[in-house]
């Protein structure tokens, strides 16, 4: 990321003249607005941004960002973006993808991008449904969910995208929500500041095919009971009265406790998003779906000590050039045993 002094960019500089073609009321609008307001603050020249996507509603994203943009094919955005980053590590590459694009058809590329730690910022719009193909279940749809392709309920068990990313040893894993604008922007800024792969799951509402997918988390009354915000160096506390917390049990598991009766904040887990090992973040990612547990948002993991893939690759090239000098074509062609014919 370049940080030279620039004429200040504004949100408007990142808007295109293309008519936005998402359904009215789609959560994608909020994500677009957040990204357009964060990009000018990153100190990156506009021409150095590249937004890459695959296929799906979310993947129309590049058309609405006035940067370099590549709307590729289904599932393959991580590979396209990896090619860009290897060839040009100085570019600021962001990727827009969805639960189908990143976890079904493109699942393989997603995990390999993350384990390599390619410096790509991944925005996974998770609406737990296939929108563009009009309403089939996705890899994040709930077990037994009734959709167009599962009239008797889905037999699939869903992926938890955060667990998957942590399982692939991603160095930055976060979760935010489309309508939590302030939280989303902070999360995007944290992702931008991360050098390696940054994976952000954004819970997003598809008001046409899966309306209310996240209402248990987003409704004002329910929010504080069902969501826990992960903050570095702060205890894991949630609840309307901020009287509940997460405790580490002797067997290694976690449990929800109510403060009081001898249990204080000091007994709760102190969140450490910079932990070098992924196991702690993985444990946190498994709160969802457990009775009584809240859904965590914020930074599960932000450990930036691993070199970026594109830097390792290019550094190797530079080292060899330093050791051997720049390649000489004549020498290459005449390598090995040669002989003269007169």
């Amino acid at each position: 990321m370049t940080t030279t002094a620039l004429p200040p960019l504004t949100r408007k500089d990142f808007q295109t003249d293309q008519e936005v073609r998402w359904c009215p009321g789609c959560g994608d609008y909020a994500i677009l607005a957040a990204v357009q307001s964060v990009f000018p603050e990153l100190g990156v020249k506009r021409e150095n941004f590249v937004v890459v996507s695959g296929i799906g509603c979310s993947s129309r994203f590049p058309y609405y960002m006035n940067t370099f943009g590549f709307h590729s094919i289904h599932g393959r955005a991580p590979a396209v973006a990896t090619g860009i980053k290897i060839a040009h590590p100085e570019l600021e590459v962001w990727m827009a993808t969805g639960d189908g694009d990143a976890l079904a058809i493109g699942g393989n590329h997603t995990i390999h991008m993350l384990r390599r730690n390619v410096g790509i910022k991944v925005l996974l719009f998770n609406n737990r449904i296939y929108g563009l193909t009009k309403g089939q279940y996705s890899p994040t749809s709930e077990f037994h969910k009734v959709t167009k392709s599962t009239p008797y309920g889905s037999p699939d068990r869903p992926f938890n995208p955060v667990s998957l990313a942590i399982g692939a040893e991603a160095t930055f894993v976060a979760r935010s929500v489309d309508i939590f604008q302030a939280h989303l922007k902070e999360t995007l800024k944290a992702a931008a500041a991360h050098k390696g792969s940054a994976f952000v799951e954004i819970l997003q509402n598809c008001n046409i095919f899966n309306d209310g997918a996240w209402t248990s988390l987003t409704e004002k009354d329910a929010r504080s009971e069902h969501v826990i915000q992960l903050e570095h160096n702060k205890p894991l506390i949630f609840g309307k009265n901020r009287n509940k917390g997460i405790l580490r049990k002797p067997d290694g598991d976690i449990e929800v406790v109510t403060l009081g009766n001898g249990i204080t904040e000091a007994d709760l887990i102190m969140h450490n998003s910079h932990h070098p090992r992924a196991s702690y973040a993985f444990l946190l990612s498994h709160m969802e779906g457990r009775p009584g547990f809240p859904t965590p948002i914020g930074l599960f993991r932000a450990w930036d000590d691993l070199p970026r893939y594109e830097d390792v690759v290019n550094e190797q090239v530079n080292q060899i050039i330093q050791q051997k000098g720049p390649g000489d074509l004549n020498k290459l062609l005449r390598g090995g045993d040669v002989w003269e014919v007169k």
Partner: protein
Amino acid sequence: MDIPSGKTKREVIEQAVIRFAGDSGDGMQITGSQFTNTVALYGNDIATFPDYPAEIRAPAGTVPGVSGFQLNFSSGEVFTPGDSVDALVAMNPAALKVNIGDLKANGILIVNSDSFEETDLRKAHVTSNPLEDNSLDKFRVFPVELQKLTRAALASLGLDAKSMDRCKNFFALGMCYWLYNRSMDPTIRWIDDKFSKNPLLAEANKLAMRAGYSYCEATEAFQISYEIPPAQLTPGTYRNLSGNQALAMGFVAAAQKSGLKLFLGSYPITPASDILHELSKYKSFGVLTFQAEDEIAAITSAIGAAYSGSLAITTTSGPGMALKTEAIGLAVMTELPIVVCDIQRGGPSTGLPTKTEQADLLQAMFGRNSEAPIPVLAASTPGDCFWVALEASRIALKYMVPVILLSDGYLANGAEPWRIPTAEEIPAVPVKFEKNPEGFQPYRRDPETLARPWAIPGTPGLEHRIGGIEKQETTGNVNYEPLNHEKMVRMRAAKVEAIRQDIPNVMPVGDPEGDLLVVSWGSTFGSVAGAVKAQREKGRKIGHLHLRHLNPLPGNVGDVLKRYRKVLVPELNMGQLLWMLRAKYLVDAVGLNKIQGRPFKQNELEQKFEEVMGL
């Protein structure tokens, strides 16, 4: 090395074909390539045919485990590895069984007699011992106790039996060097280099080879040795080169000549992996190699690299091509320059991974959804792979198109002497990046080439979006209008057609008109050229048209086809170029089709020529 003394006779001959055959673990590929290197350095023209099983180690001593390496070396011009062999080295009964049918009558047969025990015969499903049952009477058979003699030669080194036995191929190699009067020096240099970290093994292999050589000298086993004088090749500096090495170097040259970084996205697959191996060594040229998680990531990473301004390539074989199909369509739509190398092998599906075939032509032509024409080129010889890599890169970069380059297993692993060009002899590959934001439109076209501008990320003022959705002409914006779509489909086709202006007309070799035109493409070049030459020497009126550019075809192909009474298209497939020529030119051409995972023999071509000409 000295000329053998004693009572043995030395005969000068023009040409010989030798084949080394043994178990996969017997080191036959190394033995063959060492012999090749030595005779090439001496100045013979050569053609090689390595033939090995798909299994890394099939059960030892069995027929499926047989690995072979054939070499044709000559003082004259060599077109093919040869139809039949003059000398066969067989390390075990299975190798003998598989290969004996190709040995000429009175040919030399060196067998490792130590491996003709009861159990060895059983593993090869041989019921009677061929060394005892007179079935080899028509050959000059030399049973040699390769194992015992090698062990005896290495006795002083203190190696275990297994390590000693591994050197027996070099004993056989030493015998062959004696038989053909060749110096052991190049192989000694190779051994010293190869085993520089293990001097004991270096010593063992050298000792074994010298022992084989001395064995011939001392026992006068052969009574005769041969000499094949150097060939009269075009003056210049030569090296021995395989097709895959040539491709790798060709792309490095294209990158150097265009001033671009070379990016290879690849997933290992036989027989293409050696290109990845080669290019991953060339880091001092700034080459970026990416071993992707799969074939699709291999090509899409290349598309990303091309989008950001690299000379981007991907290398694969047929099954990988099938997986890359959708991404090739993306490169067509986004009009980005990549080169897709398909090192063809026997198919369909996994097919015959280590055997050659040229049956991906129609896949290269049409294997995508909708109308997605692409330039297609094919290399004709191992050395030609270098020049085709340059030509494919030139076309891709000039016309902003993906290009498919076809090679095959035979070219990939086969080797020939290659006249090395100087860097200055290699033509420049001009490239222009768009820089000017004034009136910039991502799909505005060059009037001559119809290419769109290459506007790479990082260029101020050129921010724009591309993708797989249909584009509005000029602006490149998403557009679904019916007439725009038809216009863009025709535009992409016209762009590929425009390349024809840039391709030289083709001239048939041999008779410019006459009884028969033989049309070939790809690796059948050598065998067809050899067969045409032989037939013309018999007075037949034959022309040979070999096509490098398969899409678009050179402008005068239709005219050439009309100048002959008959047109024959020999191919290692069911008739794919034949189909294209018949469809495009309404010519009543016929095919000669072989789908056995093996190249044509000159003999079968000549027979077919005669049949078609009604002789």
